[in-house]
């Protein structure tokens, strides 16, 4: 079963451009999904897009579920690298939190495969962001928050910020036009940044620090 929680936190180097065979296969999978979605993407399609044989594919990935899991793991690492980089150049707490959320939305929107799935097959992705699976994603985000927000917040506040921003990004990933019954498009990163500045920062900035 595919999960959204890769083992451990990423290193920037590990998340960098991946020219290996496995990397090309994953790029092939992304391209297929971006064109026809997850449900219609087959192992053969991926092999064709990656320019390799089925046999080669099987050498690296036991099957379609393993391939999808590896794809999710790699993209999760890239997402974390993008957010880490954005937060590293922040000049204030507001900047750090807003750019964390904004860069996450920006990065996710740049993935054509994800756009396709969210727009045309949301029921394939959303179950992984629901109930206990979302709890697991939020726990990873909390740990990540403790890591990257250390210059700005005490660990407990940083953990809360990590979880809350992950919640916000997933809750706003698809924008809702309130005149329609269905979501229309992906959220605007700048709108998310100003949401964080207006609604998130005041509460989290006010958390008292516990100094002995």
């Amino acid at each position: 079963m595919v999960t959204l929680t890769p083992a451990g936190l990423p290193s920037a180097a590990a998340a960098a451009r991946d020219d290996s065979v496995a990397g090309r296969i994953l790029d092939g999978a992304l391209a297929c999904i971006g064109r026809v979605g997850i449900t219609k993407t087959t192992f053969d399609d991926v092999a064709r897009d990656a320019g390799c044989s089925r046999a080669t594919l099987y050498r690296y990935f036991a099957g379609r579920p393993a391939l999808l899991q590896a794809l999710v793991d790699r993209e999760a690492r890239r997402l974390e690298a993008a957010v880490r980089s954005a937060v590293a150049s922040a000049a204030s707490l507001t900047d750090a939190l807003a750019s964390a959320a904004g860069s996450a939305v920006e990065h996710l929107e740049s993935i054509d495969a994800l756009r396709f799935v969210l727009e045309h097959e949301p029921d394939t992705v959303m179950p992984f962001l629901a109930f206990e699976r979302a709890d697991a994603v939020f726990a990873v985000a909390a740990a990540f928050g403790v890591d990257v927000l250390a210059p700005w917040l005490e660990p407990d506040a940083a953990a809360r910020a990590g979880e809350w921003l992950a919640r916000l990004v997933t809750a706003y990933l698809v924008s809702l036009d309130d005149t329609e019954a269905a979501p229309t498009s992906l959220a605007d990163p700048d709108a998310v940044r100003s949401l964080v500045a207006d609604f998130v920062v005041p509460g989290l900035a006010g958390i008292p620090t516990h100094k002995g």
Partner: protein
Amino acid sequence: MTSGGDPLSARDRLLAATYACVARYGLGKTTIEDVVKESGVSRASIYRHFPGGRDELVRETVGWEIAHFLTRLGDHVRDEPDLTMLVAEGLRFARRSMLSHELLQKILETEPERLLGLLTTESARTVPFIAAFLYPYLERERASGRLQAGVDVARAADYLARMILSLIGSPGRWDFEAPEMLEELVRRELLGGIVA
């Protein structure tokens, strides 16, 4: 119970019958035939109300039960004296209701994928519903001078609705039965940028 002349009650009767079938056979195994037997309504009549067939019927039944849930939730909190207490009690009650909803828990255990796919489309309706419920309470806070300067009520309502829905389904680190924790969550993460 009125007879089949009123289209609204006929629809409700079909949804209630479908709900009973889902409780008995599950989401995946419930058929139009099951609903025919349970409701006493003809197949042709069912398709008239739900041209999309079984899938539309099941989808609408999920929406129907969610609407009931939200109505119970709204009734439970509508008389809370202020927004902070309303949101806190709402989270606690909603989470407890979800955990004690036997059919929901059964489906989450036996056929979660099917349900979660359906809930996705429903959240597009649920968020605006919760936001609309909160809107007058936000207006009341403003009228009492308890809203921070410059807060856009519609934007705040939308934010709260989304985050509340996220919390109800996936509490993460939060235990809504722990009063101090709940108050922290409501005062800071939820209302920290909204209430003065």
